[in-house]
C-alpha cells in the first residue's frame, strides 16, 4: 500500500501513499499509523500521519533507516474493513463577533451567508489528520461551492475556538494562533485538553464530525 519509502533526514522514514487527497488514501495512512502504534516498536519515537504521507521518526541511538524500513515493509496491515471511528457533534456559534470572515466569503464564493451555513451545517466531515498546533483537526471535504483560498494576509491572532474554511477543508483553532483560514464561527467545545494524557484530542484521525449551529445564548451556556 505504501508507494515509496525514503528517508527524511537521518532519523525518519517518509512513507508516500500517493499524491491525491481523498478518504481512500488517507484511510490507508491511518491504518498503517494505528498498526504501527499498536506494535509499539522499540526505537520509534513519533508517527505523523497526514493526508497521504506517514512520517516515522526513530531514535538514532537505537535504530537506523534500513532497520526500520525493513520492519515497516514486513508489517502486516489490513487493507480493508471499516476504520474505528467516533461520531462527534461540534456546536458552532456564527454571531457576527465570531464569524470574522463571513462577509469576505460571501464575496469570494458569490453566495449568501445563509447558503454557506446551509451547505456547512449538518454535513458529515472526515478527520484526515490532527496537528500543526495541538489537537487541531483537518476535516473534509467541503462542497465545491464552499472552497476558497486562504486569506491573502494571515491574521496574527486567530481566536481560540475559531472554525475556519480553506480549500476542501474545515478546521478548529484549539489555541489562539496565527493563521489564514476563513473564519465562519466559534465553538465553545474544548477540542484539546492536555490534562487528559491518554486522550487529549476530542477529534482523532478517522473520526466523523458534524457541526451544529447554536445561538449566542447557547454558546455562553455551554461555557459554564
Amino acid at each position: 500500500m505504501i508507494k515509496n519509502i525514503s528517508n527524511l533526514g537521518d532519523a525518519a522514514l517518509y512513507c508516500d501513499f500517493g499524491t491525491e487527497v481523498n478518504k481512500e488514501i488517507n484511510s490507508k495512512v491511518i491504518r498503517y499509523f494505528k498498526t504501527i502504534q499498536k506494535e509499539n516498536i522499540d526505537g520509534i519515537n513519533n508517527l505523523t500521519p497526514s493526508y497521504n504521507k506517514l512520517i516515522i521518526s526513530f531514535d538514532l541511538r537505537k535504530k537506523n533507516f534500513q532497520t526500520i524500513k525493513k520492519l515497516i515493509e514486513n508489517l502486516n496491515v489490513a487493507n480493508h474493513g471499516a476504520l474505528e471511528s467516533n461520531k462527534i457533534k461540534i456546536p458552532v456559534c456564527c454571531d457576527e463577533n465570531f464569524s470574522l470572515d463571513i462577509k469576505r466569503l460571501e464575496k469570494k464564493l458569490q453566495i449568501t451567508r445563509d447558503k454557506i451555513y446551509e451547505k456547512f451545517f449538518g454535513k458529515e466531515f472526515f478527520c484526515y489528520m490532527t496537528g500543526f498546533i495541538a489537537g487541531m483537526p483537518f476535516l473534509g471535504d467541503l462542497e465545491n461551492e464552499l472552497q476558497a483560498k486562504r486569506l491573502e494576509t494571515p491574521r496574527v491572532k486567530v481566536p481560540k475556538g475559531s472554525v475556519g474554511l480553506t480549500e476542501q477543508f474545515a478546521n478548529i483553532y484549539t489555541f489562539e494562533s496565527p493563521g489564514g483560514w476563513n473564519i465562519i464561527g466559534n465553538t465553545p467545545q474544548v477540542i484539546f485538553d492536555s490534562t487528559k494524557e491518554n486522550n487529549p484530542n476530542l477529534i482523532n484521525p478517522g473520526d466523523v464530525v458534524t457541526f451544529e449551529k447554536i445561538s449566542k445564548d447557547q454558546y455562553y451556556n455551554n461555557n459554564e
Partner: protein
Amino acid sequence: MNKNYFEIKRAGINTTFQDQGRGNLYHIGIPFSGAMDNRNFQISNKLVGNEVNFPTIEFAYQGPLLKYSGENINFAIAGDVKFIIRKKNNIIEGNCYQSFTLENGDELDIISTNKSVYGYLAVSGEFDVNYQWSSCSINTRANIGANNGKKIEDGQKIYISKINKNLSDKRLNYINTKIENIRVIQGTNFDYFSDEGKKIFFEKKFVISKLSDRMGMRLEGPKIENIVDTNIKSEGLLKGVVQVPADGNPIIMLSDHGTIGGYPKIGVVISADYDKLVQLTPGSKIKFKKLELADAETLFKLYDLETQNLISQI
C-alpha cells in the same frame, strides 16, 4: 512545605524548564520540545551529580537573576555564559562547567550568553515541577509542561525538593566549538527547486534572522527559486527540516516546531549538527553542506560517543 527555593528577581528573555522532551505525540500536534542543546543540558545535570535527564532551567541570551533561600545547594551552568554569584560580602565571577555552592541569601545573576543562544542551569536536587507525558518541558504554544506551560516570570518562586547532600566539587574541561557549515541531507522536495536554486542552497551563505526562536530559525540570503509549486499538501515536520516558502527564504524547524506544514522541504539538518546549529546567534552566517545518509549516521555515532565521553569525565 518546601524550604528551599529561588525567588526570580528577573526572569530573563526566554527562561523555561526543559528536560529531554516528550515523544510519540506528533500525531496529536505536540512536538518533542526538550532542551535545545541536548549535550549541554546533560552535562549541566552531571556537574551537580544528577541523572542526566533531570529538569533544568534553560535560558536564552539574557538569563534569570535568582535569589536563593534554603540549605546549601550546588549548581552548575553549561554553555558559554557570563554569570556572577553575589554573596553577603563579595562577588564571585562564575565559570561554566564547574559546580558552585549557593548559601542562604546568595544571588545568582546569569547576565548573558556569550556569542551563543542557550545555557542550562542545573541544581543538586530536583526542581519541584509538574510533568505532562513524562516531561517537564515547557511548550508555551500549547501551554504544556511545568509552570502551567508558561515561561518563568518575574517575582515567582521556584521550589527545590530532595536536595542532594553530597556537595562535592565537579568540573569539566570543555569549550563549545562553533560551526559555520551545517550539514544536510537532501529533502523530499529537493526537485521542486531550480538548478540555480539548488546551487544557491549549497554554495551561498545565509544569515540567521532575528525572527528565530525555539520553534524555528529563519534565514536570509539569495532567494531559492521554486519551479514546481510553493505549497505541498500538508504533511509531518521534524526538527532540522529546512522548508522554503514562496518568498524563497529558508526556515529551519527547531524543537517546538508546528507538527504539520505545507512548504516544500529542501533539506534536513543531520542529527550530529543540531546542538551546534541552535546555538548560532542572529546575524551569524551559515553555509549548507550536502551529505549522504550513511555519513550522517556515522557522524551521529561519533557525536554521541563524544557526548557520552564528556559526561563520563565528570
